[in-house]
């Protein structure tokens, strides 16, 4: 076990080194991503210049929602997205079989040998916006809110990573999983906006089947003392518990998918 753990930092170091081989391209990619998310944020600002409120949320509150979502997503996706998106190819090409014979946990190997430092761009944009928004949105700070903020951010990170892991793992059963990712990103875009603006059906989906409501709208609404539809007073607790619960589900699902894996021809 200790031996296995000591390998992980080595895997990360090797991957980061390979990414940094093309340093210019790496930072150009990050800049392009910052501009892209910046464009979405700028769009929101233009809208709020005209309309003042979106579903009862003002500009600093929406900026808080946007940056919280971007940060939680970047942290969660760095330990899941590219690695599990590519799992489909590993299954199709049979490369996964070779990974299964390695004397290390397959999930740990997959995640840490591809730990995506490319999310540095997301984080570089999210943190300054988050700090500004936390000050401008008038959060009532107390020890309770500080703990809730940290706990719900951690929970949101877990939700992101767990949902992506569950989608990616289906490739071991169905060979394909990429169409599920396009559904995921459809819903993911909605989490930049307050959940109360959507029809009840979409709200219900975001709080249950595709639980992305917990990566931004629910925790940020609780932090700002805004009502959360469907969950009501339970929202705070739900935001904190969603991460650990969905992560456990993801572990069970990963084990199940791995047990069903039979290889895809070859």
């Amino acid at each position, binding site marked *: 076990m200790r031996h296995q753990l000591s390998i992980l930092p080595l895997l990360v170091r090797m991957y980061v080194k390979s990414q940094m081989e*093309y340093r210019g*391209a790496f930072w*150009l*990619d990050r*800049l*392009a*991503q910052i*501009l*892209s998310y*910046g*464009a*979405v944020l*700028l*769009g929101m600002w*233009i*809208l709020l*210049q*005209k*309309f003042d*409120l*979106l*579903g009862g949320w003002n500009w600093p509150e929406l900026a808080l929602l946007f940056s919280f979502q971007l940060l939680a997503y970047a942290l969660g996706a760095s330990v899941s997205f590219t690695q599990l998106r590519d799992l489909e190819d590993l299954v199709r090409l049979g490369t996964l079989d070779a990974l299964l014979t390695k004397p290390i946990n397959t999930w740990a190997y997959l995640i840490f040998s591809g730990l995506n430092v490319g999310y540095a761009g997301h984080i570089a944009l999210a943190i300054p916006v988050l700090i500004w928004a936390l000050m401008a949105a008038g959060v009532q700070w107390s020890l309770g809110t500080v703990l809730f903020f940290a706990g719900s951010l951690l929970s949101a990170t877990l939700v992101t990573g767990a949902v992506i892991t569950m989608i990616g793992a289906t490739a071991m059963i169905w060979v*394909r999983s*990429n*169409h*599920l990712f*396009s*559904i995921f*990103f*459809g*819903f993911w*875009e*909605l989490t930049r*906006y*307050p959940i109360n*603006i*959507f*029809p009840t059906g*979409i709200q219900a989906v975001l709080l249950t089947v595709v639980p992305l409501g917990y990566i931004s709208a629910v925790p940020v609404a609780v932090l700002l003392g805004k009502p959360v539809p469907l969950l009501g007073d339970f929202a705070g607790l739900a935001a904190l518990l969603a991460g650990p619960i969905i992560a456990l589900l993801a572990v069970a699902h990963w084990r199940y998918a791995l047990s069903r894996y039979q290889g895809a021809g070859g």
Partner: protein
Amino acid sequence: MSAYAAFVRSGFLTSFAYRNDVWANIFGKLVQVFARVAIWLAVYAGATMVDGISIQDMITYALLGGVVMGATRYDRIVRHVGNALKTGDVAIWLLKPVHYPLYLLAIEAGASAYTFLLAVVPTIVIVALVYGMYPPTSLFHGVIFIAFCALSFLIHFLCAAIFGILAFWLMTVFSLEWLLQSLITLLSGMLIPFWFFPEPFGTIAAHQPLAWLVYYPSAVWLGRFDIPQTLFYFGLGLAWTVLLAFVLALLWRRAANRITVQGG
């Protein structure tokens, strides 16, 4: 010419092979269009009119945005060039009696037609039935809307292909794709129509080529311009198309000259 027709067909049929993707696509689009309508309902917050634009106008605008932007995918075009460059396949296209940018156009036309028929049309019908949608202001506006859609497809393709070909110099398509995404998000009018932009940014945005992707087709449908104005903006869009086509042809010629294929 018949070769390109075959590429259009092949683009269409290749998409047909991935039917799961189409269902996922319809579902993803449905969620997106619903979301956009929800955003406009939320910002209007019960008001019927803002700056002379009614909420029903904005719902129609959001749906039309789905129609004109739903089928063509700049990321697919950019990645297509990127993959050809990475694998060295691009060298093969230099040997064939086919103009590579035209081949790209043909493939994308086929794939777009497929997505349009099987994903965009059903999505729009469903959302229009739920929220209601304005018909075009007049027969003229309805007919010229179709011409504007064709212009939208061409400019969309040309911009994406230009960004793709730039990879011959930058050797990475990743950043080019994200850069184009940021421009399209803000400058196509997809998220927010330019009449809600603060001036002078609204006027500036309305004259750059990406405005023809979503803003003009939708604004024409809604009757925001009278007949002479509509024709003027169509002409301006056409001029942008010619200019972009010229830029693409020039870039492709330069790129073909400087290409080095490693390995194979």
